[in-house]
C-alpha cells in the first residue's frame, strides 16, 4: 500500500514538474504553430511517464490509475495538447495491459514500451463508418508469406506522424462483419502513413491530428487475442472518458484560476469595493464544481467496479450509460467554465498575450464535444435506455 502511494507521489511530483517547467513554457508556441509538443513529450520520457501505468513486472512504473488520471489533470492545466497526447497514449497502453492474458508478443511489446518509452497513437476512427468506433471496414488480410496486412483510411490520427507505434481497430478478416473487430499493434517500420489533408484547427492544435491513409504489414501475433467487445466495454470506453474528462477539468481549472487572479488584481486596485467581476466568478465556480464532482464520481465508480472479480459490472449497459454520460457532461461543462472565465476577465481574457488570457482554454475545450461526437453518444444512450432499467 505505502509503496504504491509513494510511487504515485513520485510520479505526480515528476508530472507537475514537467507541466510547470516544460509544458507551460511551450504551450503558446505549440498552439500558435499547431506543432507537436515535442519538449513536453521528451520530458515525460525522461520521467519514464510513458510507462508509468504499466506493471512493474514488465518494467513499468506500477502507478495507480487514479494517479494517471491526476497526471492528465495536471498537464491539462498547463497545455491541453500535451495532456491530450499523454492521455491518448495512456489509454492505449492501459487497455493492452488490462487485456494481456499473457499473450507473449504483447508482453514483450509492453516491455519494449517501458524500456524505450515508445509513444503509441491510435487509429480507431475510419472514413465510411460515420464515426462509429464499433465498426471497421479495413480488415486483417492474410498474405502468402504468413504475415497479415491492412490499409485503413483514417479521417484523423492524433500525433500519428510523431508516434512510434499504432493501436489500430480492424475487422477480424476480409469476410468478417463490420462489427466483428480486433485490435492490432503496428510498430515503427511496419507501417507507412500517407498524409491526407491539412491540420489548422480551432483548438487542441498541438495534437497534430490530420487524416492519413495507413498501410501496414504485421505478424499475426500482433493481433490482440482478447475479444474486442470486452476490450471496448471494460477498458477503452471508461478509461478514455475518464482520462479525457480529467484533462478537460485541468484546462477549465486553469481558466478559473486565471479569472480568480483577475478578480483579485481588480480588488487590490480598489480596496474596500467588491469588484463586479467577483460575482461572475462565483457563478463560474459553481459550474466548475459540477464538472469536478462528475469527473471525480466517475473515477470512484470505475475504481469500485474494477476491484470486483471479473469486472463484470463494467460490461453492463448501466456502465456504458454511466461513462457515456461522463463524456457528454464533461465535454459540455468544460467549455462553459472557460467561457465563464472569459466573461470574468473581459478584454484581458480575450487578448492572447495577458496573464488572464483564456482563449486557448476555450478553444481547446471546444474540441471535447467532437471527440466521439456527443450526438452519436446520445443516440447510443437513447437506444440503451429502451431496455436498461436501473440507471
Amino acid at each position, binding site marked *: 500500500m505505502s509503496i504504491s502511494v509513494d510511487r504515485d507521489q513520485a510520479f505526480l511530483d515528476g508530472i507537475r514538474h514537467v507541466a510547470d517547467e516544460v509544458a507551460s513554457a511551450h504551450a503558446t508556441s505549440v498552439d500558435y504553430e499547431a506543432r507537436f509538443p515535442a519538449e513536453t513529450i521528451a520530458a515525460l520520457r525522461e520521467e519514464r511517464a510513458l510507462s508509468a501505468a504499466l506493471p512493474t513486472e514488465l518494467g513499468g512504473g506500477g502507478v495507480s490509475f487514479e494517479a494517471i488520471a491526476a497526471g492528465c489533470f495536471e498537464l491539462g492545466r498547463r497545455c491541453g495538447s500535451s495532456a491530450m497526447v499523454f492521455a491518448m497514449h495512456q489509454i492505449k497502453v492501459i487497455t493492452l495491459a488490462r487485456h494481456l492474458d499473457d499473450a507473449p508478443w504483447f508482453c514483450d511489446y509492453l516491455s519494449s514500451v517501458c524500456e524505450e518509452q515508445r509513444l503509441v497513437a491510435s487509429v480507431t476512427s475510419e472514413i465510411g463508418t460515420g464515426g462509429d468506433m*464499433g*465498426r471497421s471496414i479495413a480488415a486483417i488480410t492474410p498474405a502468402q508469406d504468413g504475415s497479415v496486412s491492412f490499409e485503413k483510411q483514417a479521417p484523423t490520427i492524433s500525433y500519428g506522424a510523431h508516434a512510434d507505434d499504432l493501436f489500430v481497430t480492424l475487422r477480424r478478416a476480409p469476410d*468478417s*462483419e463490420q*462489427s*466483428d473487430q480486433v485490435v492490432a499493434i503496428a510498430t515503427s517500420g511496419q507501417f507507412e502513413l500517407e498524409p491526407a489533408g491539412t491540420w489548422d484547427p480551432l483548438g487542441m492544435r498541438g495534437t497534430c491530428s490530420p487524416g492519413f491513409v495507413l498501410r501496414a504489414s504485421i505478424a499475426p501475433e500482433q493481433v490482440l487475442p482478447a475479444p474486442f*467487445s*470486452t476490450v471496448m*466495454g471494460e477498458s477503452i470506453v471508461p478509461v478514455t472518458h475518464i482520462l479525457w474528462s480529467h484533462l478537460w477539468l485541468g484546462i477549465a481549472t486553469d481558466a478559473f484560476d486565471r479569472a480568480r487572479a483577475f478578480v483579485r488584481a481588480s480588488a487590490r486596485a480598489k480596496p474596500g469595493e467588491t469588484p463586479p467581476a467577483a460575482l461572475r466568478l462565483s457563478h463560474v465556480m459553481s459550474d466548475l464544481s459540477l464538472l469536478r464532482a462528475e469527473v471525480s464520481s466517475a473515477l470512484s465508480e470505475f475504481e469500485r467496479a474494477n476491484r470486483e472479480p471479473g469486472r*463484470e*459490472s463494467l*460490461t*453492463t*449497459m*448501466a456502465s456504458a450509460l454511466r461513462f457515456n454520460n461522463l463524456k457528454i457532461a464533461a465535454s459540455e461543462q468544460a467549455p462553459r467554465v472557460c467561457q465563464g472565465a472569459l466573461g470574468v476577465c473581459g478584454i484581458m481574457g480575450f487578448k492572447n498575450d495577458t496573464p488572464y488570457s483564456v482563449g486557448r482554454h476555450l478553444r481547446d475545450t471546444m474540441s471535447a464535444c467532437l471527440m466521439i461526437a456527443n450526438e452519436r453518444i446520445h443516440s*447510443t444512450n437513447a*437506444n*440503451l435506455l*429502451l*431496455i*436498461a*432499467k*436501473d*440507471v
Partner: protein
Amino acid sequence: MANPSEAGPGLEERPPASDDEPVTEEIRQIVKDHGRLSVDPSTLAPEADLYQAGMTSHASVNVMLALEDHFDVEFPDRMLTRSVFESISSIEAAISELAPTPAQ
C-alpha cells in the same frame, strides 16, 4: 454464469436446428425478425456468436425488447450484458432463469 442444470438433460444428443425445443424456435424467430443478421438464423448452431453473424449492439437492444415482450419477462440490469445475448443458447439460458416454464 449459466447454471448447468438449466441447460436441460439431453442437450448434447439432440439433433440440430429443425428439432429444436419450442422455446429455441421462438428465440430463433425473434433473432430472425429483429437481429438483422447477415445470415439466416435457422442455419446457426445454438452456440454460434450472433455478433459475429452481424448483430450490432443497436439491433441487440431490439432483440432484447422483443424477447421481453414475447416471454413476458424483464431482464434485470445484471443480465443486460453482451455475453447473455451472444448466442441462441445463452439467450435460452437467460429466459429459463427468468421464466422457468415459459412454454406453459
